[in-house]
């Protein structure tokens, strides 16, 4: 339904209306509420809880971390598992292996002396991901998650993903502009490796990655069996992601119904507005409460669950006719300062076009640094999982 409404809006925008960036003048108070993100990991993986603070709507700080808090997981039988700060407001426990028949809660004492506790929660088991599949759709590609719970007991799911893809520079490069050390004005060209005059292989192959920034939820509550087949994300046609090799790691979490509702509310408030039929954005109340000041809002919902992951690879050869087209072009420039100044400004030299020994007569230059040096958009360190 959401989608339709969005489409209608779109239709109207296309024909007559418009959507434009707008910054209303709102006097926003300093809220500084505690934000608790993470889940209590019931298995052998450590529990990671991130503590941050809400900021003003327009604030220079992107994230305000909450440091030096005392964070514990506590069982109904007063068993305590401490978490320690690992820098940047991230608090990590050791491996917990919680008892599935007991209830646990999170306890936080912040630097300013305030205490927060979550409700006591049951341990949730996350089924394994059956598969991550993909289909070619409208020239692009859509990835789907397949999972099921043979016990028909899970019902509510959340997924996060981490994409990684290999990118290659469009041009190899053995040349570089020599710059005046003071003015950074181009003074000519030189070889990157004057001795071997070899190309720089370290900037040809890189890996780019991207983490999910949206909340992805799914439920089988309306289905007869606890089975999920849902689209996770789409890749645009001819995207560079599939120009060589692409990989995605999906993490799956089973949720309680309340946690699902909470996340749904965040999603609705922050990702799904802008249609003609928006529901009202609503206040967020999770299952964490400030015991020192019960009226204080605490953002976050703590669940006890597990993380199950799966990774797949898709290579360019799996998607015939992908047709990735590099935006890179190159021209040939005579190696003299006049030509360089006239044609070569803002270009990146690649290799000699005509040369006599070490003497470059003319050279090719690409239209962007991006076309030559892949480290400007990724890392050239091969990820450990890369085949």
């Amino acid at each position, binding site marked *: *339904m959401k989608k339709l409404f969005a489409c209608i809006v779109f*239709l109207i925008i296309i024909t*007559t209306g418009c*959507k434009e960036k707008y910054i209303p003048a709102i006097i926003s108070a300093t809220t500084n509420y505690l934000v608790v993100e993470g889940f209590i990991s019931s298995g052998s993986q450590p529990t990671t809880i991130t503590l941050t603070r*809400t900021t003003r709507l327009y604030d220079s700080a992107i994230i305000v971390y909450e440091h030096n808090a005392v964070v514990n997981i506590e069982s109904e039988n007063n068993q305590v598992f401490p978490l320690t700060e690992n820098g940047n407001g991230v608090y990590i426990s050791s491996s917990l292996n919680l008892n599935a028949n007991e209830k646990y809660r999170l306890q936080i004492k912040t630097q300013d002396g305030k205490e927060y506790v979550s409700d006591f929660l049951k341990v949730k088991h996350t089924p394994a991901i059956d598969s991550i599949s993909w289909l070619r759709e409208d020239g692009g590609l859509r990835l789907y998650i397949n999972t099921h719970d043979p016990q028909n007991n899970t019902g509510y799911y959340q997924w996060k993903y981490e994409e990684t893809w290999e990118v290659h520079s469009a041009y190899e490069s053995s040349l570089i502009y020599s710059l005046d050390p003071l003015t950074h004005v181009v003074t000519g060209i030189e070889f990157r490796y004057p001795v071997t005059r070899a190309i720089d292989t370290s900037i040809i192959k890189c890996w780019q990655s991207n983490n*999910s920034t949206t909340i992805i939820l799914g439920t089988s509550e309306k*289905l007869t069996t606890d089975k999920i087949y849902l689209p996770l994300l789409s890749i645009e046609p001819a995207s560079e992601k599939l120009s060589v090799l692409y990989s995605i790691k999906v993490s799956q979490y089973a949720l309680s119904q309340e946690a699902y509702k909470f996340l749904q509310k*965040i999603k609705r408030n*922050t990702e799904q507005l802008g249609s003609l039929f928006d529901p*009202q954005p609503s206040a967020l109340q999770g299952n964490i409460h400030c015991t020192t000041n019960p009226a204080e809002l605490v953002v976050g919902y703590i669940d006890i669950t597990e993380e199950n992951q799966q990774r797949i690879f898709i290579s360019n050869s799996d998607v015939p006719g992908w047709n990735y087209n590099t935006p890179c072009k190159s021209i040939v420039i005579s190696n003299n300062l006049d030509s360089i100044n006239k044609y070569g400004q803002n270009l990146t030299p690649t290799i000699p076009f005509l040369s006599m020994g070490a003497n470059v007569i003319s050279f090719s230059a690409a239209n962007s640094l991006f076309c030559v040096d892949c480290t400007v958009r990724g890392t050239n360190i091969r990820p450990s999982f890369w085949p």
Partner: protein
Amino acid sequence: MLKRLVYIIFILLTAYSALAQKTDMAVISGEFKNITAEQFLLQLETQTGFHFYFDASQLDSITINISANSQPLPEVLKLAFLNTGLGFAYTQNNFFISKGQVVQTALPDGSFDKDNIYKNISPQDSDITEDLKIVNSKKNIQPNKLYLIGEQGSSNNQGRNTITGFILDNNTGEPVIGASVHAEKTEIAVVSDQYGYYTISLPKGRHTLSIQSIGMKDTKREIMLNGDGKFNIEMQTQVIALKKVVVSAEKAKNIRSLQMGVQKIDIQTLKQVPVVFGEADILRVVLTLPGVKSVGEASTGLNVRGGSTDQNLILFNDATIYNPSHFFGLFSAFNPEVVKDVELYKGSIPAKYGGRLSSVLEINSREGNKKNITGSAGIGLLTSRLTLEGPLIKDKSSFIIGARTTYADWLLNLLPDQYKNSKAGFYDINVNISHQVNKKNSLYLTAYMSKDNFNLNSDTSYHYGNNNISLKWKHIFNNKLYALVTAGYDNYKYKISSQTNPINAYSLGFDINQSNFKAHLNYFVSSKHTIELGLNNILYKLHPGTYKPLGQQSIVGIDQMQAEQALESAIYVSDKYTITSALSMEAGLRYSMFNVLGPQSFNEYPKGVPKTEDNILGAMAYGKNKFIQTYHGPEVRLSARYAFTNDFSVKAGYNTQRQYIHVLSNTSAMAPTDIWKLSDPNIKPQFGDQVSIGFYKNLKSNTIETSVEVYYKKIKDYLDYKSGAVLVLNHHIETDVINTRGKAYGAEFLIKKITGKLNGWISYTYSRTLLKMDDPTAGEVINKGMYYPANSDKPHDVTFISNYKVNHRFSFSLNATYSTGRPITLPIGRFFYGNSQRTLYADRNANRIPDYFRTDFSMNLEGNHKVHQKTHNSWTVGVYNLTGRKNPYSVYFVSENGVVNGYKLSIFGSPIPFLNFNIKF
């Protein structure tokens, strides 16, 4: 009765003795068989030598069939003119034969009021109608003629008699609705109802009735009122080609009528107001009236005096329309070609209406042409329409059929490729048949159907539609009493389906069905009292949601919400009492009752704790047709008027209302997928009351109307929603809704010029609508239990509507509207969660979007007005949002790629030209 008879005999005898002066010696003998009255009189002339004066046109349909044997001349004439409507008088040797009015042969001696100054043989009242028929068939309306009504001396009703009848269009035979009948030199004026029927009570004697109506030539009738009688009046349509026409419609109605907070718009005005895409749109014009608001341009949901969009009873010829919009609210679902007029009751709601808190919007469609087959067709940018009307039995029954369809697909084709499979369409069909069985019985059949469907990029497809049928019987018992009996069936349904994901492919259906029965009696006791009474019954059956798998692969489980049944009944009585000519009041009482019927089961909750899922004690099942819960109570409708002068009056009113059916929707705009829910043991009915006072002053001989109306309204148990409420397929909806209280108050100022080359209105409204939810046992208090503005709370609103007629073929219209921006909920802060910055919300509706301002312009160009051409055509050209102001529909923040961005969404953010072509045949 005997007394009356004696009286008549006495009159006749006295008349006789007066006549018997000379002429009794003239004795007639002979056979007068099958000759015309004219021939008869000529023969008499030869026989007696007396002179006979007559108007041949009055006689030409009358044949004489008598034989006389030495009888006195007056006796012979009396015999001959029996049952013909002719009367006579004489002096000396001259006889004056006339129809209806009898020529006076002498000046009255003494008081002018004496009844017996007219020496006549009074025709029966049925003869008057015969008489009129002859006149009518000749298309010869004779305003200067004197019509006799009633038997002379037939009534001893303190000198007052009642005239009833229909006001008809002499061209088409259609009733003229809302025509005013005013007895000159008196304060007595009445207005014809939706069947063209009127009742007026006047003192005996001679009167001049002045009849006025929109689009009709003013006319007058000289009447001589002797007793109760029927009197049909035909009016001529105003032929626009005339050089000079003065239209004065419903003059001073606002001063004289008892009702306040009532706005009526006829179709001519409706068509003048420029709207987006140029299609005359009833709801958009209603939105320009003071006190009526919507949350935004894409919405046809009306918020009347602070009420919510589900608190309006929308009646289309007595059929309840649940979704009055097409195309997700861009168009209203009423075909302007079949609509006659629209009346909005927002203040004093008559006792005959009930079931909604805020307003009644009554849309009346036209009756078909009773004389000829005619039609019209129109072509616009998005829709085309065709109307056909004509007689089924000439002068007795007629039909009108209107249909509209869209070809908006071209709009969708402008979308990017990924939406290339999109489809959208709608149509609506109206059929009205009216039949006059006889003078006392009429039948009206109305059928309406609308369908909308959407399928954007073959993802999810949407269908919704209204189906309505109703049959009405009007029976006139006598001049003072008539009855209306209506039976009807209304249905609204929608269906959503999606097949993109074969595993989750589903269809979701919703429908609402109601059978209704209404009986209404209108009893015109005297000129001082008019009593209305009646009863209404509605039997509801709702299917609040059926979720089903679609296709073989789908593993969707069937989720069927239990059907809801209920019976809503009401009885009412009201009396319009004219205490003095200045002071009158109307008191109405409506008693409504709502029975929740089995089979249904309801969750039970302990008292005093929030209704949450955890607190459900269990479900209680009830058997078929069992009365599960009954809500009932009185509804008071009071209004009074005091007219200080002919052009200044003060009115006051008090109203209470109960509403048993609610929309479940947590969106600000009315969405087609909103669900209606009946009250049940866990959902209380809404209750509202309103007190209002108004001042009405007309200027420049009633051509300028001004008014100020002030109101204060309270609403109880209005449904609002908990944060993140689930409304669809929720088997325990009571856990997600909360009962709120509301208050609304405001002042509406209106200046309206209704005649002249330049006409239109300007209105200013100050109004507030505030809601409050502070019951901690409901589980969640909103905005800390303080009053907060409702979605439609726009304190200042100025509307200017104008039309200037350059000549009879060319006119242009200019509108302007300004209002405060509507309240919205904006974030109070920001946080980082799930790899992205996100916004934090707290209090509802604490901010406002920027103010709204828009001007529209349109020109109407009519073809030539030669009456006898095959087709008449007209063009409408205009621009919506002339200044191109990007009026925001909403302001919102959304997280995209990890950061928060703020946007302003405007719907019609640029000038939109439009063009419409209409043809009449």
